[in-house]
């Protein structure tokens, strides 16, 4: 097979994989635009939707490394947390500017990811995953022991008053839109194909001239920059950062869960997953105060069993219930 036809074939395969499908993509775009109206139309739901947006951004950040290149990271919360601390430290030094927060977080996290990535991105598969988890846990501990970071007592940030509070929402929206836009652009660019090529077959990709380490580091740096930006806009809105908030397990696990549930390695998947999962979680928490987590677990189990490839595929289904049931048999051992 010549190089040209190989890449053409790869292009064909991965387009479907990367883009998910048009229906889901449109749903995501429309929802995203609607979300812009929240501060005006539903001012009392800002924190809820800001949190959802934060998870969407984190899910996209994770998808870049975990979905596209197939390097499953269990430690992206490191970047979210460091991003949050960037804002907190700036605030402690009298700088309360969201642009400065995001800029610092993006630079610091991309650099940190590249630095850490150099050794650990050589690891394969699960070993990489655990190394990232190790980095996250170690950083959590270290930050909690540094006086400059406020130790476990944390740092308080200066927060704007209620009248201007929606700037945090719009900031989160912008970061999320940026994350989706970046994913979309990357997915359509040579970079995106290189990522997918690495995921499908690292050796073959290397033969095609894709330098694995360099591309993996770029993917992880993008991933880290997105997560860092999400953390940078979360911290001032929350007004307080400590290790248990900045490096929260939820911020680590939920984006992964949302991406897989939505449809891994697709443009619309993380968005759909994050919206539906957060929405369901919220409704359950409202309706069943004591047993909502139990039901939440049951919902996840049910979705996995009924839609093993993610919610995105529901939007792409052509046939009716029978076709779908038939397709399920394919996943059984």
């Amino acid at each position, binding site marked *: 097979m010549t190089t040209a036809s190989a890449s053409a074939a790869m292009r064909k395969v991965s387009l479907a994989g990367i883009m998910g499908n048009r229906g889901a993509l449109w749903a995501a775009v429309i929802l995203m635009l609607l979300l812009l109206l929240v501060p005006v139309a539903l001012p009392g*739901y800002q924190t809820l939707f800001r949190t959802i947006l934060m998870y969407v951004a984190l899910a996209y950040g994770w998808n870049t490394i975990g979905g596209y290149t197939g390097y499953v990271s269990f430690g992206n919360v490191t970047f979210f947390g460091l991003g949050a601390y960037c804002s907190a430290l700036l605030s402690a030094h009298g700088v309360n500017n969201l642009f400065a927060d995001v800029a610092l977080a993006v630079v610091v996290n991309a650099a940190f990811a590249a630095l850490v990535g150099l050794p650990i991105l050589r690891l394969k598969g699960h070993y990489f995953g655990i190394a990232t988890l190790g980095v996250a846990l170690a950083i959590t501990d270290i930050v909690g022991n540094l006086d400059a970071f406020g130790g476990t007592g944390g740092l308080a940030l200066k927060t704007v008053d*209620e009248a201007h509070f929606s700037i945090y929402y719009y900031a989160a929206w912008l970061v999320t839109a940026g994350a989706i836009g970046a994913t979309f652009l990357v997915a359509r660019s040579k970079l995106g194909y290189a990522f997918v090529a690495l995921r499908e077959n690292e050796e073959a990709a290397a033969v095609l001239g894709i330098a694995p380490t360099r591309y993996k580091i770029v993917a992880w740096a993008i991933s880290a920059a997105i997560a860092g930006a999400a953390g940078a806009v979360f911290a001032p809105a929350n007004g*307080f950062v400590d290790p248990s908030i900045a490096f*929260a397990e939820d911020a680590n696990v939920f984006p992964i869960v949302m991406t897989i549930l939505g449809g891994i390695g697709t443009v619309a998947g993380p968005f759909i997953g994050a919206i539906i999962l957060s929405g369901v979680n919220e409704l359950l928490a409202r309706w069943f105060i004591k047993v909502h987590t139990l039901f939440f677990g049951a919902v996840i189990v049910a979705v996995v069993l009924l839609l093993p490839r993610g919610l995105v595929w529901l939007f792409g289904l052509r046939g009716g219930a029978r076709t779908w049931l038939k397709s399920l048999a394919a996943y059984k051992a």
Partner: protein
Amino acid sequence: MKLRPMAALGLVALCAALTAPSVPVAAAGDTIVFGSAVSLTGSLTKEGHLTQEGYDFWKSYVNAHGGLKVGGKSYKVDIKYYDDESKAATAASLAERLIDQDHVNFILGPYGSGTAFTVAQMVERKKIPMVEGNGAAEKIFSQGFKYTFAVLSPAPRYLEGILDVAHSQKPAAQSVAITAASDPFSQEVAAGAAAWATAHGMKVVYNNKYPENATDVSSIVSAVKAANPDVILNAGHLQDALLVHKGLKEQNVQARAYGYSVGPDTPDFTGSLGKDANFVFGGAQWSDAVKYRADRPGFYATAKEYAKAFDAVYHHRPDYHDAESTATCLAFQYALQDAGSLDPDKVRDALAKLDVTTFYGILKFDSRGMNVYKPMVTNQIQNGKLVTVWPRGLAEAKVEYPTPPWGQR
């Protein structure tokens, strides 16, 4: 049946359900609604449960006695709860939901200092008063918040009583080792104890922290043993208190007194440790031995009456978490009466001026919103029973000191 349109429809329905106005808790007008995010699942389930008991007990009392009279009108009270899953970050959006969607009048605090901090930020912004009884870290109150009040004594005071007891007994304790969990509350408790010890001429021979969800503390126990202290103190939570105490026995670490900031008060402590729990001291915000007499009507006047009525409902003796949670509600009760209005700002001002003695002790806030006027008490487990031994005026029994060797307790 085509699935694609169904999927789209489902998504729309979900969004609609999310933004649907929630059903009002009760018909507005004759009910005062309090909102609270407590830990009903996750690692702080037990503590969250106690908090809820304390709140609910007050609610039933008030509603059974004709409700609250505010500005010449009688109101029923109701409490809207959400589960913060023992996570500080979750509590903020729950507080917003309570205020903006459920339109609660006031906020009752969550359990834990980190969570209380996050919620304090939210109520400050929304200008809705919160009284809390389960977040003692002073850090919350150094931020200049105007709408957050705490009925409990600040964290640094938790272990002072135990040191005072051990220091004044014979043979007097001269040295202390302190182990503390890494969370902000425990760190403040440890710092307070170390400061007290130094100020009173005791030597701090060991003072170190361990990670919040440690699964093994044996190395710290070894280091404590090597330091050979007269008093061993732990600032932490129930789970680590048990881990440390079991570890001390496993390595045969003998001290004259053992004290814990949180743990000995809950029946779980004695239940898990059996005889080894004897002689252990615990710092407490309150015990049913306190001898305050309420100076205003409207609730049980003494700790004994409160404890008896509480036991009849929940079938266990109220511990200080229960009492401080009930006291949280009482602060609102009297502030509402003083304000004569449900207006958040008027109630806030009334809270700031509040000066009332209840079964729980004095409720009065300094300029930061902390209740520095109420002393702590110190309890000791004697023969499987929790008794108050300090301050001396409240002692139900003589202090048992020094602690006999392991195996003879």
